[in-house]
């Protein structure tokens, strides 16, 4: 590595790839840089470690998502007795291209931007790149994912200054872009269950009973007061199925169990704010209880009991992995409670009372991303006022 280094430095043959080289070098070797001013010792933790830990926390949801893609596929084509490994393999092959596209597009743009600014490559996209495949419906064409990722990385992140400077969660902007640009591909029967073959594996035709809508989608279109969610074969499903996660939905969001394992990792390592995470669930549960106490057939989602409400859709995934993004969330302790509560409340509010968007989590988080600085501003101004008052008393 040291031997080839000079050619990447200014003046060298490959100077245009300096940022990429630095990125690779700091990835492989801990930098030998020692402190010149300030403290002489530093903690071992850096942003690489932080981001990788988040990725590790996403792995359970990722693996389960792969299995579930396969499970839904073989269920839909009437081969539900297929072995679990085949199902997983099918899901792996289905999801892998999305992961590759997401990372290739996102990291490519990051590398270019880093080189333009002659900065080190920053680690933010490590997490975003794995979040995107997990929240984008599996049947989204790859080119759409690529366009949306490029849009989000450039307009939601790089124009603000890169990692740590963005106002909105980049992965959610990707999904929002897809959602509003190609609404027909983002919901309904065809979005969430992959039917055709994945990289040549396991194609088939659906059984007659097939219905590919997510439970939340079904709820939104319910008429009357008899709420019955079904799986892809039209068989009824319960809250427990949603908790385990063998239901149609975006790859990462279906399984509460996998998400809770991720939440445990994030909380144990202290990366995610437990204040935000808990208050999102509290806010969501409270709001869901409230709407359930006032059921109405005009708003069929109000018929769902609060716990099922939280187990369905992207609520839990958003609460654990998206709302807790420290860059776009509230940064003061008090602010984090308010921020989390409002996300929970708005997510259910949108879900229930705006039947155009059966999934409210994405919009709720993006909305609160916009308000997080305001919340912090209010909290900090209390501190400022207290300090000013203290000075005034003295005089």
């Amino acid at each position, binding site marked *: 590595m040291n031997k080839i280094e000079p050619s990447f430095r200014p003046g060298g043959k490959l100077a245009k790839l300096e940022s990429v080289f630095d990125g690779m070098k700091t990835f492989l*070797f801990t930098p030998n840089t*020692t402190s*010149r001013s300030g403290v002489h010792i530093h903690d071992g*933790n*850096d942003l690489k*470690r932080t981001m990788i830990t988040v990725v590790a926390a996403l792995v359970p949801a990722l693996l389960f998502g792969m299995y579930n893609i396969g499970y839904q596929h073989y269920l839909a084509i009437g081969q539900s007795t297929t072995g679990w490994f085949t199902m997983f393999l099918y899901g792996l092959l289905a999801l892998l291209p999305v992961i590759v596209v997401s990372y290739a597009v996102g990291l490519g743009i990051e590398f270019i931007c880093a080189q333009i600014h002659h900065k080190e490559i920053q680690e933010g996209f490590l997490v975003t790149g794995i979040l995107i495949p997990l929240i984008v419906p599996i049947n989204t064409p790859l080119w759409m994912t690529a366009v949306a990722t490029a849009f989000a990385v450039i307009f939601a992140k790089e124009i603000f200054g890169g990692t740590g400077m963005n106002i909105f969660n980049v992965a959610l902007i990707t999904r929002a872009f897809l959602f509003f640009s190609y609404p027909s591909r983002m919901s309904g029967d065809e979005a969430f269950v992959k039917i055709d073959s994945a990289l040549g594996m396991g194609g088939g035709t659906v059984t007659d009973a097939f219905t590919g809508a997510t439970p939340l989608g079904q709820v939104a279109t319910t008429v009357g007061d008899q709420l019955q969610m079904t799986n892809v074969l039209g068989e009824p499903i319960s809250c427990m199925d949603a908790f385990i996660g063998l239901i149609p939905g975006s790859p990462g969001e279906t399984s509460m169990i996998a998400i809770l394992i991720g939440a445990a990792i994030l909380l144990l390592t202290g990366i995610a*704010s437990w204040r935000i995470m808990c208050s999102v669930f509290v806010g969501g549960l409270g709001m869901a209880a409230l709407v359930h106490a006032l059921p109405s057939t005009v708003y069929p989602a109000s018929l769902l009991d609060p716990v099922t409400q939280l187990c369905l859709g992207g609520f839990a995934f958003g609460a654990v992995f998206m709302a807790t993004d420290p*860059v776009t969330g509230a940064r003061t302790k008090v602010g984090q409670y308010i921020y989390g509560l409002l996300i929970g409340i708005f997510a259910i509010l949108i879900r229930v009372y705006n039947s155009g968007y059966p999934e409210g989590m994405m919009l709720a988080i993006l909305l609160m991303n916009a308000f997080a600085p305001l919340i912090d501003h209010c909290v900090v101004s209390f501190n400022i006022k207290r300090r000013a008052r203290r000075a005034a008393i003295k005089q």
Partner: protein
Amino acid sequence: MAIVRLNKGFDINLVGAIQGDEIAFTSPARSVAVVPDDFHGVIPRMEKKEGEHVTAGEPLYHDKNDEAIKVVSPVSGTVKEVRRGERRHIDAIIIAPADDRQVVKHNLGGNALETLVASGLWVMMRQRPYDVVPSTSVRPRDVFVTAFDSAPLAPDLDVVLGDKRQYISKGIEVLGGLTDGKVYIGVRKGQSIDAPGAVVTTFDGPHPAGNAGVQAANIAPVNKGDVVWTLDIVTLARIGELFTTGTVSHDTVVAIDGEMVQEPRYVKTVMGADLETVLKNELTNVAASRIISGNVLTGVKVEKEGWLRAPYRHVTIIPENSKPDEFMGWASINPNRFSIYRTFTTWLRGLKKPVSLDSRIKGGERAIVRTGEYDAMLPMDIYSEFLIKAIISGDIDKMEQLGIYEVAPEDFALAEFADTSKLELQRIVREGLDKLRAEMS
């Protein structure tokens, strides 16, 4: 006696701590240096030229803006060199000690403030706001004295005090006469002190509990318009000695410790002594060592030909880079790779066990991503992250509102250690304070 419990902060338990409190030997000094950078806020105007003779306690230079403020020579001898750097900035004033041991004797009949300013002990104190040498024209609201140093491997100030302990009460009397408020002394839990006339407060908690500014923030915070003085108990005792005997003693006890020291121990020497003489038999491997005059958080990196720097009580020697080209260190699951965060596995072996740390930064500088890291290391009622952002963006109003008057760079040293984004917080705070001071004058 009031007890204040501080929960924020962290004690980094480095290997190489001194066992016991005996002073191993007395080291002479072949040369002695005064470094003007140690006395922030004093712009030097030389009073002595190269080749001139100085007596111990005689001024070497005064402040450009206030001629009364003197910085004195700690020894009697000849000014060997005034070493200058870029733009004629004075890097160091080097004195070759003579054997005559003459000391300036002050007349104690006059104005206490004038005597203190002329003695050279004045520049050992700091004022808040701005963390600079105090202005002589402002009577402080209060005086805050810290009786312990809580930094990693720091010396026990009771050892550094030695028999100067007897002058503490005189020192309190003198400073008490220079303030309209009180003299506060902060002690650590279990430390006893005889301090008539002062308000003694016990601080129970990890570093930075020993910082006078942190103690002030938890007793009576500095508001806009307030001025307080901060100093340590050793300086207080020296002031008491000056007003008892008429002379300032420039001898000091220095803790020499850290991983790269043969045997960590206390050594008696003189302020500003050359480290080549003091450390002659102490080092294990000079080439692989980093010599820090001071502690690992706020000290200054010096060469082995360097000098002891203010506050003249601590030299730490740590490895420069104990693991060159560490392969994928960020992915390590080795519990010996130290981190106070649970993203690494250090917590499995216990964060309080002695740890070896070198001077690598172990990561690249990034924007602030994680929340609450700074607040967890700073036991003050301050939104430190917002303050740092206000300083970086140069927003003077916001800096004032968020309490920059209450802080000094040293208060942010631990946060700088713990920062995942590896920002130079002490430098940022210093620049903010300097900017504000320039704006206000």
